[in-house]
């Protein structure tokens, strides 16, 4: 393109970059230009390339946003197609005996369902992950229930937690023979009214 003998900085070869390569410069940028490398910082060719990489990165962030914004929302029939394709029985988990030596039991998944249903009695609360500490497969063994919960902004959290704990305890007592020695509730999310995606970017 140009007939001059001077190196064209846009060739981005080792000659223009004073012995460096474009991916070395990208790595340097990734590392926050630290530790400082004077052979890069003092090279005019490298500085041109670094500026270009920085601009490319800025455009890349904008591209990611624009790409996502250009995609249509998932339509209902497509979502239903996925839901009908997943194996519902994959979450049964361990079998919890109803009594010592009993030939009746309840699955871990069903107990989680019982625990989650407690949220219906405590307005605004949502239950997240639910775990058991202790051997739930041996009847009568002491078990702790660990529950994560989400509450709406502005709610009195200690009150909600107490009510949720009582509700879970009552339901477990009614529907299982688990020897529950404690129900630990961790409020890990406070929902804002307009918080649509839940995760900051």
């Amino acid at each position, binding site marked *: 393109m140009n007939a001059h003998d001077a190196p064209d900085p*846009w060739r*981005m070869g080792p000659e223009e970059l004073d012995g460096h*390569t*474009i*991916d070395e410069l*990208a790595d340097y940028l990734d590392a926050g230009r630290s530790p400082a490398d004077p052979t890069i910082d003092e090279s005019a060719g490298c500085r041109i390339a670094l500026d*270009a*990489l920085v*601009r*490319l*990165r800025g*455009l*890349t962030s*904008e*591209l*990611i946003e*624009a*790409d*996502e*914004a*250009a*995609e*249509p*929302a*998932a339509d209902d029939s*497509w*979502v239903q*197609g*996925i*839901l009908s*394709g*997943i*194996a*519902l029985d*994959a*979450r049964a988990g361990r079998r919890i005996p109803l009594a010592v030596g009993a030939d009746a039991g309840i699955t871990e*998944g069903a107990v*989680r369902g019982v625990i*989650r249903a407690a949220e219906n009695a405590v307005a*605004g609360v*949502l*239950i*997240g*992950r*639910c775990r058991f500490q202790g051997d739930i497969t041996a009847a009568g063994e002491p078990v702790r229930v660990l529950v*994560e*919960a*989400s509450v*709406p902004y502005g709610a009195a959290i200690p009150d909600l937690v107490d009510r949720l704990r009582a509700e879970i305890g009552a339901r477990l007592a009614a529907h299982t023979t688990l020897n529950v020695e404690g129900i630990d509730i961790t409020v*890990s*999310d406070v*929902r*804002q*009214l*307009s*918080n*649509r*995606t*839940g*995760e900051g970017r």
Partner: protein
Amino acid sequence: MSHHDDALETADDAIVAGRAADGDTDAFAVLVRRYAPMMRAYARRILSGTADVDDVVQDAFITAWGELPKLDDPGRVKSWLMRITSRKAIDRVRAARPHTDLDDIDPAAPEVTSPARQAEVRAGVAELSAALKALPAPQRECWVLREIGGYSYEEIADELGVPLSTARGLLARARKDLIVRMEHWR
């Protein structure tokens, strides 16, 4: 939509993915709606219109449902879904060209732009989009995995089944090509 569904939609990823891991399909549906556009956009960049993006994302979600109980931190579900998406997309790429020399692949024919893709974007972004589509497929795949997917060089090599030096070389050429084109947009 019930109050309950509304609450789920505004709950954070840890709560929603935690419930889905525990078997709540309503929570899983919220994850599907929340991240399908992001995953489609990512798959579309990797594949550049050469395969059905919907199928890739659907596949990714079905795998995700099966593996969610193994996800240690449900709060990281977003980046975890991105990983599964690129794996599914690259599986298709590799199935379509099992033994080709990655250096000899020409760019795919430009994608026909669908109405959904014509949202207004600033000129530089549109140019970057076009430049990406013009890259030879292996270069584009490396670049997208690195810059959109956040893969390390080793992970790219592993995913594409090429030596580390090849992955680095493809990425270097992609970067160089993009910034040279970008200079012409200025």
